[in-house]
């Protein structure tokens, strides 16, 4: 298998990484900043030092250290660092291939998705947080998706993260009752991202594949995290309805993923 790019690692590892950091540090802002710091360091170090054997472990160790550094400095950066993110075209190409997810920290990733769609947040903030925190889009990309300025989106995200912290919105693994009560909101957010991609008000393009692909990716992640829920299963329909336009199967990659997953099952 060819060495992955940092962008590929980003797409596979971002959600898991943020979810674990949220569990450890109990703060969305700290988790988001630390994960971003780690990717910034990866983009400068990996091309020189070579890719680590386990990029996920490297990122987790690095981002934990970054988070602790930040907390020690008792200093939260409001101005976000230059964002590590791949460009939209790379992302679309990757997202439209067969997706595999890291099987670690599934409970934490589910808690993160459920938390970002908490009814105590306005729906527009739920959507923005889901795209930024769960899907890992940059603030700039989220702003473009909503057709608002980057500073407006920065304020919206920062208000949402403040409410998270100040109001005590939980980021724990939901119990079954909470999960069932809250899944419709998560599905609604994913549907609205998909719909926005298809009928984007005010955009020149009729269909914005990038948003549709994000919605499909989020739907796949949720389906992966929660199996056997009829509403969640319905999300796979997003893919089918969109696939006619964007299908780009990547068999090699798919096999690599299934081999790796099979391997991890055998190893335990």
């Amino acid at each position: 298998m060819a060495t992955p790019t940092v962008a590929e690692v980003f797409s596979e590892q971002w959600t898991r990484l943020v979810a674990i950091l949220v569990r450890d540090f109990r703060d969305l802002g700290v988790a988001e900043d630390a994960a971003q710091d780690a990717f910034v360091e990866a983009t400068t170090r990996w091309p020189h030092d070579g890719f680590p054997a386990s990029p996920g472990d490297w990122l987790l160790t690095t981002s934990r250290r970054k988070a602790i550094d930040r907390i020690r400095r008792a200093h939260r950066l409001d101005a976000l660092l230059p964002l590590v993110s791949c460009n939209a075209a790379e992302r679309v190409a990757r997202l439209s291939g067969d997706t595999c997810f890291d099987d670690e920290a599934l409970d934490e990733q589910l808690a993160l998705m459920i938390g970002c769609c908490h009814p105590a947040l306005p729906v527009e903030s739920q959507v923005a947080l889901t795209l930024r925190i769960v899907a890992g889009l940059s603030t700039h990309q989220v702003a473009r998706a909503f057709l608002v300025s980057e500073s407006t989106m920065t304020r919206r995200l920062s208000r949402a993260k403040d409410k998270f912290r100040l109001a005590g919105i939980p980021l724990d693994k939901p119990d079954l009752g909470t999960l069932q009560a809250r899944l419709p909101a998560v599905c609604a957010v994913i549907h609205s991202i998909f719909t926005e991609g298809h009928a984007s008000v005010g955009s020149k393009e009729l269909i914005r594949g990038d948003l549709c692909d994000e919605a499909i990716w989020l739907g796949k992640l949720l389906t992966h995290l929660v199996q056997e829920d009829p509403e969640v299963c319905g999300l796979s329909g997003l893919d089918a309805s969109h696939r006619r336009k964007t299908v780009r199967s990547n068999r090699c990659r798919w096999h690599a993923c299934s081999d790796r997953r099979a391997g991890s099952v055998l190893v335990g």
Partner: protein
Amino acid sequence: MKYMLMLVSDPSDEPRPDSEQFGPYMQEWFAYSTALSEAGALVSGEALQGTETATTVAKRDGKRIVTDGPFIESKEVLGGFYVIDVANLDEALDWAAKIPNVHFGRVEVRPVMEFDS
């Protein structure tokens, strides 16, 4: 975390003291307060007299201004509050949803500001 549950309702929606529903309604409040207390979540809670008994005070240019009535006139009024101490917002919302007059009133849930000591 501490939260204040602010109970807002139109007092004319409440069962009247001479009605049949009044006794059971009071029992619900008693049971609710007991449940909060037994769960170790109750910090404090009070019911307030009606807004017709309210007096509002302000100070402008060093001068005290006292006026009759609440600071804002509306049909729905703050009728009482609980301060509870629970793990997170979801637990606070669960307690808020069990308040006896939530069927016709509303409960605003606000985190209490914590100051570093």
